[in-house]
């Protein structure tokens, strides 16, 4: 494989990026889109976002910069007030040598238009505009819809610049409250925490692959649980009627969006079952736990396999099986006799890893990922107790709950660099689930 300096890679990426748009389910891997070139992990091109004119200009620029920063694939060049380089104009070329001196590989120039914004991305090394596009912005400035539109611009620009689409135009569903909590949804940058449904005692929210619905379980006054499907369009939730009485929890949508797999238990352990999500249909048993507990399913991106937590060895471990429950295999195993357990798997959108929580000897949980190629394990956390990992669409970031700063909060970690940030500020947040891309 040929390695090129970043400038050459950027030129190739920006040329080929249009071909990658529309690959929705699996974020394009640079190897697949940049012919003969390689995007090195840790390579972070410098990007300078020029000042934006208009009443909402500062907000647009701040959102773009923060989204690039949170994506961990771009180094945002801080601009000094008063010493900010002039923007290129129609009649005058930009001061590209100065941009290069500031560390910028690309320049993002945003101009407000009647319907939204016009964006030009300059290739600093080649001293010219590499791509332009007009973007419409929804809603009124700084509204929830408007900000989501700007996030979608960030994500596309990140794809132009790095070859990998950003994750800003996403949201995180979670449970707010340790007892009788409700489902909330917050933007990926922490803005606009908003209730989704009004069911107290909600647990384990899970996104529909198109981001249109949430499935979750509700612990009622008489115990656990009934499963509900919340529709964002109507703002209402309806029970999943196919499930029987007894315990019904941890629902997840299959990648086709038509099937829900969930945990069901009565008097002989708990097992995974499948049923249709939006039409009345029978429940079909998947796992045969023979009295043990089998819970927390997660699908492989192609829908052909499942990972789940099972106590069939005496304490919980993560297993993988075919989607119909056949060929179960133990995925996580520590030393023989180890009673610390591993649980709550989440399959990465690129299919390469499974994240899970592993109990340590001090009783706390830490987040691990295991490679499905060579079964190598990487531990990503060490402060506090860290649980409930859920992958971002880029297959690189994880959202999780942690006690590292006190009561449970939600945090995001970059699994490549280990850099983390706090998403929520009110205690008692847990069971997060990262949405698919919500706007393009």
């Amino acid at each position: 494989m040929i390695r090129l300096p970043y400038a050459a890679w950027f030129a190739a990426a920006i040329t080929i990026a249009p071909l990658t748009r529309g690959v929705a389910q699996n974020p394009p891997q640079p190897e697949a889109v940049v012919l003969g070139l390689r995007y090195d992990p840790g390579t972070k091109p410098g990007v300078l976002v020029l000042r934006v004119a208009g009443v909402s200009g500062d907000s647009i620029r701040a959102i773009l910069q923060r989204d690039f920063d949170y994506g961990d694939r771009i180094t945002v060049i801080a601009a000094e007030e008063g010493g900010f380089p002039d923007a290129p104009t129609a009649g005058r070329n930009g001061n590209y040598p100065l941009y290069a001196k500031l560390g910028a590989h690309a320049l993002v120039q945003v101009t407000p238009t009647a319907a939204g914004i016009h964006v030009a991305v300059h290739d600093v090394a080649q001293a010219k505009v590499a791509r332009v596009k007009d973007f419409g912005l929804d809603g009124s400035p700084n509204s929830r819809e408007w900000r989501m539109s700007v996030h979608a611009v960030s994500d596309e620009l990140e794809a132009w610049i790095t070859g990998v689409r950003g994750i800003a135009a996403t949201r995180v569903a979670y449970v707010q409250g340790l007892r009788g909590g409700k489902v909330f949804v917050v933007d990926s940058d922490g803005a606009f925490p908003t209730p989704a449904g009004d069911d107290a005692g909600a647990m384990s929210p899970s996104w529909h692959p198109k981001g249109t619905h949430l499935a979750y379980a509700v612990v009622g006054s008489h115990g656990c649980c009934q499963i509900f499907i919340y529709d964002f369009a109507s703002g209402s939730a309806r029970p999943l009627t196919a499930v029987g009485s007894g315990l019904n929890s941890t629902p997840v949508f299959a990648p086709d969006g038509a099937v829900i797999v969930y945990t069901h238990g009565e008097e002989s352990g708990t097992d995974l079952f499948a049923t249709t999500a939006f039409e009345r249909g029978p429940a079909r048993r998947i796992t045969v736990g023979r009295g043990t507990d089998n819970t927390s399913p997660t699908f492989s991106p192609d829908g052909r396999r499942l990972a789940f937590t099972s106590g069939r060895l005496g304490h919980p471990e993560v297993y993988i099986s075919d989607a119909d429950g056949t060929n179960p295999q133990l995925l996580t195993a520590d030393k023989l006799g180890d009673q610390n357990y591993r649980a709550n798997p989440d399959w990465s959108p690129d299919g390469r890893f499974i994240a899970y929580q592993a109990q340590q000897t001090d009783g706390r949980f830490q987040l691990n990922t295991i490679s499905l190629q060579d079964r190598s394990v990487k531990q990503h956390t060490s402060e506090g107790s860290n649980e409930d990992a859920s992958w971002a669409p880029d297959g690189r970031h994880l959202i999780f709950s942690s006690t590292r700063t006190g009561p449970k909060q939600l945090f995001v970690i970059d699994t490549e660099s280990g850099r983390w940030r706090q998403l929520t500020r009110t205690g008692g947040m847990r069971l997060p689930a990262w949405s698919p891309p919500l706007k393009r």
Partner: protein
Amino acid sequence: MHRAARIVTLSLVALATLGGCKKKKPEVAVTPVNNPPPAAAPTPTPAPAPECDAACVAARDSEAKRAAIAAARATLTATIYFDYDQSEITEESRAKLDAKASILAQNTGVRIRIAGHTDSRGSDEYNLALGQRRAAAAKRYLTDRGIDGSRVEIVSFGEERGTCTEESDSCWSRNRRDEFEITGGDITAVQTSSR
């Protein structure tokens, strides 16, 4: 006993009988001043219990039965506890469940709900399943002793309804439990010790 002492004793018995319905007044201790301690008086013979007529017996039995029913209710709803990450019934819990089984066997109209709980350690989602397994273990113990399973409902709350929130062994052990609730029927048949 001297005659004078007998007269005093009988008078006290009569007074006690006559005043039986009145509330007992608090005794006031009187400390003699500058008097030598009195010589030890002969112990009076305990007064015989007053005769109890039929109404009295009925009232006494009724009270005893009420107490026995309350005791049976307390036994039936007594919480049992589990070891960490376990759903096996402990030796201590077996005795409690045997007593519950006895009460349920005598009162076939009574129905109960068993709610399984866990401590706050572990996965929130897995703990829901563990709570269900704990409730099921208690139900199985009762049905193995002849209790009709349709009278026993089980649910799980996992770690969602802890009785305490401290991160300590004491709190964790109190939260690893099955709670029992009477959901239907009345306890009517009980063992009383009034006769």
